[in-house]
Every structure is written in structure tokens, then in C-alpha cells.
């Protein structure tokens, strides 16, 4: 009678399992094991060093990993639908600059947070709107955005703050609340919400269907414009949260220099999590595990005693290797699609 009256855990498990391909399940299992090994490795090393403490390491974890994880969750939805946004780092820089400007004009902390969140969200929606309006590849629009938004951040800072020394320093503790005190809470809440949404929600499935075939969606009567724009709309909400956590965790905001390479970390986390870079397949849980793996591998490099200068190169190489591996797996399918 199990089939007629399935117990609730079985139903959730079946719901989720139906959504995931065997390849995706395999990737997530590997990532889970990889994360455990890395955490074990770091635990071992913190026990060896007198100055290092595993509890300190864990306390720093949420604040450091939350921005990439939140932005990667947002980007996962966008990649589901076959688009991409490589301007996420620059959008966060603009949002941070807006927060800094409001701070300099002595706005209250809540107003600053709202301004930061709304800026990031609206720029993400603007990207989606431009992609629909101009009918251009998402990657080109957002490549333009990558430069444009960083320039915009500098321009806004110089226009509003005179003199502008190149950085905005935020000293008051209350302006650091979301990043320093609530990062764990935000991360856990978003993670649980996203997992439930992935299991029971309909919208992610629409996005995946759109990523598989825009034409099929159109024929089925799904509004393609709304579907594609909704990925940026929802992605913007996550990006807004990511901006808030990232910016409020910093003492200084430097529009010209900060967060270079952030977009690669975010794309790396998404692809590492098993989401197909061409759309149509993926998992939010995979993305979360992927971003955790990237963070722990960065920490492992640190505990191995490798020079700080090598860090960018090694992390770049890890992400490239993962994306390359992903593309090799999908190569045959892509060639078959080409021949259809």
C-alpha cells in the first residue's frame, strides 16, 4: 500500500529524485563527499596549529561563503533558462557604492540597506529586460554590463562625494549588521527556502523547460518573455541579498578595485554544482554544495602553506578544470543536438 499512501519523506525524496538526472545525483554525491574531505582536512590542520582554531574557521564560514552562494543561487535560475549574467560582481560594486553614498549623506542604516538591495535587484532586472528588448546574446549584454556598471559605480561616487579618495570607509557598527551578525541566518533561511522551492516549486521547472527548448515552451503556451525575465527578477532578489551581505561585511568600499573575479567564482560554483552552462539542467542544492567546495578548497590552499600570490591562479585553474570536465561530459550530447 506504499504506492497509494506514500509517507511524507518518501514523497519529498521522490519529488526531488524525479527532477534530478543520474549524472546530477552523482555530481552532488561527489561534491558532498569532497566537502566532507576538505572540512576533515581543515579540521586536522587546525588541530596541528596552535594559533588556528576550527571553531573560528566555522564562525567565519557563513560571512565569507554567503555572498558567492547567494549570487550563485540567483545565477543558477538564470542559467537554467539558457541565459547568463557575468556582470554580477560589477552590480554588487554599484550596490555597494550606493550604500556608501547614502552612508556619507548620513542616511539611516535601514535606508542604506534598502538602497543597496534595490540597486542590485533593479540592475539585474535591467539586464534581463535589455536581453529581451535587444534580442542579443545574454553574454554580450552582461559583458558590456561588467564594464559599464563598474564605470557607473566610479562615476556615481565621484559625482556624489567630493572629494572622493577612491574608497568609502564605513566605521559605524550598525551599518555592518547583515554581513557580520545575520549572514548565517540569511544563508540558512535562503538555503532551506531554495531547497523546498526546488522540490515543490513549479517556476524552476518552467525555467528548465525554457532552457531545454524555447520553441517547445512557446508552443505549449508558456509566455517566453515573462519566463526569461522572471529568472532575472528572482535572480536579482538573491543578488540583492548577496550585495547586502558582501558590502556590510567590509570596512571599506573601493569601487575601482573590489570584487574583481567575483563573477568567475559565482559561475564556477554554479557549474561545479552540476548545472549545465547551456541551460536546461541543474540543481540549486548542487550550486550550494559547489560554492561550499570552492570556499573550502581556498581554505585548504591556505592551510597547505601555499603563497597568497598562487591563490588566484590555483582557484582559476580549479574552476577551469571543473568547467572543462563539465563540457567534456556534455560534448557528445551537444554534438548530437547539432546534428538534429
Amino acid at each position: 500500500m506504499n504506492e497509494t499512501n506514500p509517507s511524507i519523506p518518501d514523497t519529498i525524496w521522490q519529488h526531488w529524485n524525479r527532477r534530478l538526472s543520474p549524472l546530477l545525483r552523482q555530481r552532488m554525491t561527489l561534491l558532498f563527499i569532497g566537502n566532507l574531505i576538505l572540512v576533515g582536512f581543515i579540521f586536522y590542520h587546525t588541530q596541528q596549529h596552535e594559533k588556528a582554531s576550527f571553531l573560528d574557521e566555522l564562525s567565519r564560514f557563513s560571512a565569507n561563503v554567503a555572498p558567492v552562494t547567494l549570487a550563485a543561487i540567483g545565477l543558477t535560475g538564470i542559467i537554467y533558462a539558457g541565459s547568463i549574467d557575468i556582470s554580477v560582481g560589477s552590480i554588487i560594486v554599484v550596490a555597494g557604492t550606493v550604500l556608501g553614498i547614502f552612508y556619507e549623506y548620513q542616511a539611516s542604516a535601514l535606508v542604506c540597506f534598502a538602497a543597496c538591495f534595490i540597486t542590485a535587484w533593479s540592475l539585474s532586472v535591467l539586464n534581463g529586460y535589455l536581453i529581451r528588448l535587444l534580442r542579443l546574446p545574454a553574454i554580450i549584454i552582461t559583458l558590456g554590463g561588467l564594464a559599464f556598471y563598474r564605470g557607473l559605480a566610479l562615476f556615481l561616487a565621484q559625482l556624489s562625494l567630493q572629494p572622493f579618495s577612491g574608497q568609502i570607509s564605513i566605521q559605524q557598527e550598525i551599518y555592518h549588521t547583515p554581513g557580520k551578525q545575520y549572514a548565517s541566518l540569511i544563508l540558512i533561511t535562503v538555503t532551506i527556502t531554495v531547497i523546498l522551492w526546488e522540490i515543490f516549486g513549479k517556476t524552476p521547472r518552467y525555467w528548465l523547460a525554457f532552457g531545454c527548448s524555447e520553441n517547445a515552451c512557446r508552443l505549449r503556451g508558456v509566455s517566453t518573455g515573462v519566463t526569461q525575465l522572471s529568472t532575472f527578477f528572482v535572480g536579482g532578489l538573491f543578488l540583492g541579498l548577496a550585495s547586502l551581505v558582501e558590502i556590510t561585511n567590509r570596512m571599506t568600499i573601493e569601487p575601482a578595485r573590489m570584487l574583481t573575479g567575483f563573477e568567475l567564482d559565482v559561475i564556477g560554483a554554479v557549474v561545479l554544482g552540476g548545472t549545465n552552462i547551456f541551460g536546461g539542467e541543474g540543481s540549486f542544492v548542487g550550486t550550494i554544495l559547489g560554492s561550499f567546495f570552492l570556499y573550502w578548497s581556498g581554505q585548504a590552499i591556505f592551510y597547505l602553506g601555499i603563497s597568497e600570490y598562487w591563490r588566484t591562479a590555483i582557484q582559476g585553474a580549479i574552476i577551469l578544470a571543473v568547467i572543462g570536465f563539465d563540457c567534456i561530459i556534455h560534448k557528445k550530447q551537444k554534438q548530437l543536438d547539432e546534428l538534429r
Partner: protein
Amino acid sequence: MKQWTLPILLTIEMIVLVPYSGVRFESPSIFLTDFGFYLSDLCATAAPLLILSFGMTLVLMTAGIDLSIGSMVALIACILSLFDPGLSFWMLGIPCGFLLAIGLGWFNGWLIAGLDIPPIIATLGTLFFYRGLCEVVIGGRENISPAPVWLGDVYGSVPLAMTLTGLGGWYFYQSRWRREIQMLGGNRIAARYAGIPVQRRIYETYLLMGILALVAALCASARDGSVKASWQTGLELQVIVAVILGGTPVHGGSGTIRGSLIGVFIISVLELGLMGLGKSELKPLLLGFLLVTGVALNTHFQFSGSEGATHKE
């Protein structure tokens, strides 16, 4: 739009921005002297971009893109800066730089042709990877460039750039290679069925990009005099915007080196104008805007009149 649109745009841009770039209009002789200096400065600024835009035009024609050229140029210049000026630079530095340039170009080609990673993702990855290697090589230092100064001024870099793009463009226009990379950019499956070695052509294009990055690194480092890990950040965007403004579509299959040449001058005039105005921070803002506008015009209005034909230099 017709082919004269770009030269007219360039002329209008020069009329607007030249007065802010230090050219005085007090008398004809003063104007001519100032304008001569301005032109030599403009050409020397444009030369490395011109060299890279030649390669980028070919890359875009294959429906690819190379975002890593800024980091590639910086990495080559960082490695070259480890050599002493003089004989050891020419005997050891240049061969090492050449091997490195081939290696970097080959690596990009391998990621794109061998592993089938989308070019924009692969080269976004190598952008950060190569930049990370720059930090590994010279750390936080600023090294003096051993490249001779004449390579960076108007008498060295400009003839070099013009010869490379002129002779290269002439050979390219006539060659079967041009038709093959145009075809694989236009329709990769058709190109494969037509017996064109698609993978080899992609490798060759990115290898050429690597070699051109070496030449550009020599010119630019000789002009600037010193290099550091963050040197030439954002160079890739200038080159891509120049090529796209020049009429090469991002979806491949066509392109003009002549158009890219005018695109490079549009970018260089803008750069000098913004420097003269003291508003250099507006550069990324304008580049981003120009990139999206250029692609939109190319896609929807056939902006530069490149109807699938490649014109010679």
C-alpha cells in the same frame, strides 16, 4: 548603413574631442604642430590595440571571443621583465616570450576546440588564471621593462603595427584560410561536412592571437616603461569594442580588418579625449555602452555594411 559611416563617425569624434586633447587653434602653425604631436600620440596609443584587433577580428569571425588578451599581454610582459635589457633580452627573453605566447594561445585553443568550452567562459577563466600567474611571477613589485624604448614610440610601434596588419591583412584577404575560418564561424557543422579541419583552424586562430599578444606586449611595455601584475587590466574590452564597432558580428562568419582599424582609432581618440578632459574614469562606462550599442547596431541594422565579405587592409 554604408561603409562611410564609420569614417564620418571618427571624424566627428575627432572634431569634438581634439580641442580637449591639447591641440591649440591660435594660429595655423601652432595648430599644425600640436596636431602633429596629437597624431603621433594617437598612433602610438593605437598601435598595440591595432595589433590585437587584427587577431580579435579573426577570433570573432570564428564565432569565438578572447577575453584573456589583457592578462596574456600582462603575463608575457611580466615574464619578459625578468630579463636584463640588451643582448640577453633579445637572445633569451624574446624566444622565451615567443614560446610562452604560443603556449598561452594553445591553451586557450585547447580549452575551446579540445574541451568544447564556450569561448567566452573559457577565456573568462584564463583571464583570471593568467592574471593570477602575473601575481605569481612578479608579486607586488613593479618591474622596469627591458624592451627598447623605440619599440614603444611612433617610429617603432606604428610601422610594426601597420606592417603586421597590412601584410597580414593582404595575405589573409587572399588566403583560403580566411574563407575556411569564415565558413566555420558561419556554420560549423557545414564546415565540418565540407572537410574543413575545424578544430585545427580554431587552434591556429588562438595561437595567432597569442603571438600577436607578444608583439603588443613588447610595444605597450616599451611605451609604458614598467609593468606590474595589474598592468593592462581591461585591455580586452577596448579591443573587443573596437572590433565590434568595426562591423565584425559576435556570431561570426564575417568581418573586416579595415573596419577594426577604424574602430581602434575611435577608441583611441575617445581615450585621449577623456584623458584631456580629466575624466578617465568614464572609460569603462563608455566602453560598456559602446559594446552593447555596437552589437545591437551590427545585429539589427548591418551597421558597417559587412555583408559577409572581408575587405583587405
